[in-house]
């Protein structure tokens, strides 16, 4: 047994060795690029591969990490290229200033397009990006006084510092290496985890405290930025740009590059880009028949999507997964602590005359109840009684028709889901919503990263707390496995650990016993008692009467959207209206 700190140190050393090896490799490549005099043809191919790779890594971020489509990467690439081209040729500005201005412009457009993702998913986003691409192409061709029209911009200057093709190529390789490193690291940062969470399960991401909109806009802005950066480098490298280099077809080329190589990793981006630049050179003989090469290319796109969904690098990683030695050390973990909020008001949750109507249907009609600090409160009712609607209003997925919700004295009625989480609301889902491409540990780390969580946010502390939370629910030794390898019952425990790790003021459990077998239900009951013993306030919604009567100190009963009883378990469960609601009245029984 070793301590968390030792484990962390071992993993940090391993990462450091990896980084040193990477730097050494890049140093060799830069040395080769800077000292070897290639002929012009080879230099051009290398230059194209390096600058395109930077842009393709943008797609690794937006498509691979965040799951959003962008069919306008060539437009961003073009904006960067024109900024450098027009700036240095027409306005006599320095290369660096042009590059900086170009990146600002691209970032602005990227963020603008990104904001359209707030309201529009999938196909709409695809369409918005295509429209942007088409409009930009039209402007490049037709706004002749500024863009030089179809002739393009020629005699673009390289920066004085890297004035020879070799030194400029070496400079581009360094930029690519830095970008590659950052993109490689991104998935294990807070931002990267948020992007993956949004991609895996948008609803759960919001409820665990991730600002979905900001995450998507950021992903888009990063993608655009890398597109513009690649374009700026490209313009300097080729000294000539024209509109047809940045058409919709080129956007598709970028997309195909990232798909062919594999969207999950920057290595995939480099492989895909390299291959799609080299293959056309090998297939040059096909170019005698116009269209033939592109036709083969289109066919290849379909075949890749059909048979290699994870791209070349994804395919390789799958094959060699078992060979990679995992860092497995068992650690003595500290006991999970639950920090309570500063406020000591007795009422944690106040639901005041809450109503939610769907057209004429009053799913929830004028419900009030109060959850006391440190209690386990149950909300029960037969099917269709309005339990789930109440829960969805409480967690911010529905806006209430009337009424108010106060959490720890704060009015949260109109908060978005992630804002409620920041105010101290934690929840689990009836149909489990974990981030399926991540390990149990990563899922719980996202829980620890809840905004407003009063714990240390240093990486080692994050991981320690996440492991402690998993240990608390009894899954500490399987923390590094993918969530999909856990049984249904265990996935539910991971969800509870994710919520606990965020130190909620109130824990909402939506039918935690649903789908569990009797042994798992007993384990769940014991776990709930252990959580309650730590003083956490719990609101549990369930059908399971045995579970509810054993753990709850206070029960609120709903039927047909109205509250029909409220009080301690014994009196509530003997309440005549409750008995009627659950078992039917004598009049019905007589039939």
């Amino acid at each position, binding site marked *: 047994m070793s301590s968390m700190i030792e484990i962390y140190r071992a993993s940090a050393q391993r990462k450091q060795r990896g980084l040193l090896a990477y730097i050494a490799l890049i140093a060799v490549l830069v040395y080769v690029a800077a000292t070897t005099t290639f002929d012009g043809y080879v230099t051009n191919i290398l230059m194209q591969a390096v600058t395109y790779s930077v842009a393709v890594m943008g797609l690794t971020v937006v498509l691979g990490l965040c799951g959003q489509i962008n069919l306008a990467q060539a437009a961003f690439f073009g904006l960067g290229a024109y900024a450098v081209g027009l700036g240095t040729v027409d306005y006599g500005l320095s290369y660096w200033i042009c590059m900086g201005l170009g990146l600002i412009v691209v970032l602005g457009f990227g963020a603008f397009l990104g904001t359209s993702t707030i309201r*529009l998913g999938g196909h709409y986003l695809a369409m918005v990006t295509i429209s942007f691409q088409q409009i930009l192409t039209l402007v490049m061709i037709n706004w002749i006084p500024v863009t030089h029209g179809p002739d393009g911009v020629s005699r673009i200057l390289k920066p004085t510092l890297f004035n020879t093709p070799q030194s400029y190529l070496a400079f581009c390789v360094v930029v690519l290496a830095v970008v590659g490193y950052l993109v490689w690291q991104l998935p294990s940062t807070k931002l990267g985890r948020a992007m993956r969470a949004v991609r895996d399960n948008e609803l759960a991401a919001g409820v665990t405290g991730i600002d979905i909109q900001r995450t998507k806009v950021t992903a888009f802005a990063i993608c655009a930025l890398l597109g513009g950066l690649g374009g700026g480098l490209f313009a300097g490298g080729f000294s000539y740009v024209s509109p047809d280099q940045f058409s919709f077809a080129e956007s598709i080329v970028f*997309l195909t590059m990232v798909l062919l190589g594999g969207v999950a990793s920057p290595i995939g981006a480099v492989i895909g880009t390299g291959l799609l630049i080299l293959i056309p050179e090998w297939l040059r003989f096909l170019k005698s028949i116009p*269209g033939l090469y592109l036709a083969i290319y289109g066919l290849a796109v*379909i075949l890749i999507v059909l048979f290699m969904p994870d791209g070349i690098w994804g395919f390789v990683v799958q094959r060699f997964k078992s060979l990679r030695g995992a860092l497995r050390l068992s650690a003595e973990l500290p006991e999970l602590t639950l920090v309570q909020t500063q406020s000591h008001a007795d009422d944690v949750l106040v639901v005041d005359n809450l109503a939610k109507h769907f057209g004429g249907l009053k799913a929830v009609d004028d419900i009030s109840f109060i959850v006391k600090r440190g209690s386990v409160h149950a909300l029960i009712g037969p099917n269709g009684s309005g339990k789930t609607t109440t829960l969805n209003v409480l967690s911010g997925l529905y806006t209430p028709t009337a009424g108010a919700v106060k959490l720890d004295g704060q009015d949260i009625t109109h908060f978005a889901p992630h804002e409620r989480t920041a105010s101290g609301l934690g929840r689990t889902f009836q149909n489990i919503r974990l981030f399926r491409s991540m390990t149990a540990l990563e899922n719980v780390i996202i829980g620890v990263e809840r905004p407003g969580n009063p714990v240390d946010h240093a990486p080692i502390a994050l991981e320690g707390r996440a492991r402690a939370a998993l240990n608390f629910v009894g899954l500490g030794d399987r923390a590094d496995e993918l969530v999909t390898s856990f049984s249904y019952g265990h996935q539910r425990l991971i969800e509870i650990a994710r919520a606990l790790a965020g130190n909620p003021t109130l824990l909402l459990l939506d039918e935690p016993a649903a789908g569990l077998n009797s042994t798992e239900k007993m384990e769940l009951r014991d776990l709930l008692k252990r959580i309650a013993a730590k003083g956490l306030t719990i609101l549990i919604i369930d059908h399971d009467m045995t579970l509810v009567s054993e753990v709850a100190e206070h029960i609120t009963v709903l039927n047909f959207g109205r509250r029909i009883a409220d009080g301690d378990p014994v009196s509530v469960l003997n309440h005549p209206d409750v008995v009627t609601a659950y078992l039917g009245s004598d009049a019905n029984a007589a039939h």
Partner: protein
Amino acid sequence: MDMVFQLLFQGIGIGSVYALVALGFVLIFRATNVVNFAQGEFSMVAAFLMVIFSVDLEWPYWISFLLSLGGMAIYGALFNLGVYFPLRHRTYLPVIISTIGASILVSNSTLALYGPQPQVLQPLLDFPGFNIGTVYLDAQYLLIIGLTVVLVAFQYWFFEHTLLGKKLQATSQDKEMASLLGIPVATMIMLTFVYSAMIGGLAGILVAPILFVSIHMGGTIALKAFAATIIGGFGDVAGAIIGGLALGVIETFGAAYVSVPYKDGFAFLVLVAFLVFRPQGIFGERVAEKA
């Protein structure tokens, strides 16, 4: 004033073509929940089939016309089998990409076979058109508008009043339930692709004498048809038609009064405006998020 009527007439004519292609879009979207980015190639392929039969082989016009539509039925079926069907259980993203791949494959194969030179197709009618006052009504435009009206009426009748139409509707609304009720869902989707390819093809044949037959005709038409569906309200049949007509008119007036080079840009500007300010379109309802 005559100028306005003249432009309106032309706008509605070209808008009818967008509406027909948009109709095909919507049908496939409703049946499969994916957007077919190779929809425009349906029109392009049909126009080239027409060139093969009536120009190269010099077969009679009406026989060529029927053969082309028949060819489109086969093409729609093959398209479904090769591009959509194997991916039906995956998310929308691979399907979008695979249809984009198909679009590149088909248009460039055509380029390899026919070269970049646009082909000329004779109008369907010998009779050129006539004047009402000073407004010239071109016969081809009249034919397009007339056939669009007939086809829309047919489609309404088909979906609302025939068993097959109801089965198709059931499939598009809830595939699982439809299959539990004994509706062969895979066959229904196949039929949707076949029908969609045929009306897309019809639009292509109709517009060919106006636009020339080139490998680029598909892409332009498809993007505008897509814009039309968003303007009308995604997934809404009436919306697609109104959206298509509106787009044709806006574009024609834009080209006449604002700028010719940016003619193709108006569609996208209108599209972006709609996406930003009214993403549910003219007729669409906002779909509530499921918890």
